[in-house]
């Protein structure tokens, strides 16, 4: 027997703002069920595991806060001085995790399955940042969160990982159990006046 896969969105998509309408001026919101995740967590200083991690994953684990390294099969996002979020196609998750765990049998670096922890939403369009800024500062810096960078912060009163993928394109990851809340929140803020 085989258990069935279920969309990772535990909410009614019809109630959510989507590409068909609802969002102002050409903005789009889309679920990213294709994103798989592995949580890499080191028991020692990052420097000691970066090399082994690179070998197992084929991507340079970034050492700079907020930065992202992109590789052929996956990309690695800096989360803490010792932890990374690895994004990959959802079907590659198990294999990537096994490779890391095989490379670090002593568990100095550990790869935990994480795909189902986060629910990813893609928010595109000129007003995307303004929508996010209704739920928090996104960044208190003068120039905001730079393109190609990621950070963890609060959006709409819940923790989120925000990735500024490219200009006017954002990826927001929230804990799965709060998906329905978050989509409801997006619905409540989407018609903010410009200004």
């Amino acid at each position, binding site marked *: 027997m085989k258990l069935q896969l279920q969309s990772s969105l535990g909410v009614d998509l019809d109630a959510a703002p989507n590409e068909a309408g609802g969002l102002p001026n050409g903005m789009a919101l889309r679920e990213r069920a294709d994103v798989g995740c592995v949580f890499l967590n080191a028991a020692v200083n990052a420097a000691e595991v970066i090399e082994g991690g690179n070998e197992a994953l084929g991507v340079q684990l970034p050492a700079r*806060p*907020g930065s992202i390294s992109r590789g052929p099969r996956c990309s690695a996002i800096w*989360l*803490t*001085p010792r932890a990374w979020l690895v994004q990959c196609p959802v079907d590659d998750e198990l294999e990537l995790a096994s490779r890391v765990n095989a490379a670090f049998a002593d568990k100095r670096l550990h790869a935990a399955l994480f795909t189902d922890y986060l629910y990813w939403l893609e928010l595109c369009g000129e007003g995307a940042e303004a929508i996010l800024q209704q739920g*928090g*500062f996104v*960044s*208190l*810096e003068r120039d905001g969160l730079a393109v190609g960078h990621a*950070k*963890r*912060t*609060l959006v709409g009163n819940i*923790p989120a990982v925000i990735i500024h993928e490219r200009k006017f394109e954002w990826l927001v990851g929230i804990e799965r159990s709060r998906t329905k809340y978050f989509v409801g929140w997006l619905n409540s803020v989407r018609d903010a006046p410009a200004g």
Partner: protein
Amino acid sequence: MILIRCPYCGELRTEDELTYGGEANIARPAETVSDEAWTDYLFMRTNPKGIHQEQWCCSAGCGQWFKVVRDTVSHRILDVWKFEEVSQAAEEVA
């Protein structure tokens, strides 16, 4: 509104994103200490009106604990540093 730049992720964080951890530099005594020393560790705090060394965590961000010198009246942050570092400002205060 408390505003602190996390020394680990470098981001400015408001108090919504931070967790306060109380006074810093309270050493955990060994099991063998006297009752008085142990209960001092449990309960006694300096609680100054003014300059205070304390622990904060970038809880909604990179999850790291760090130390801060803060004025408990004005909420001005005088210094922020990592656990493995030493603070000039903190030493001057001490």
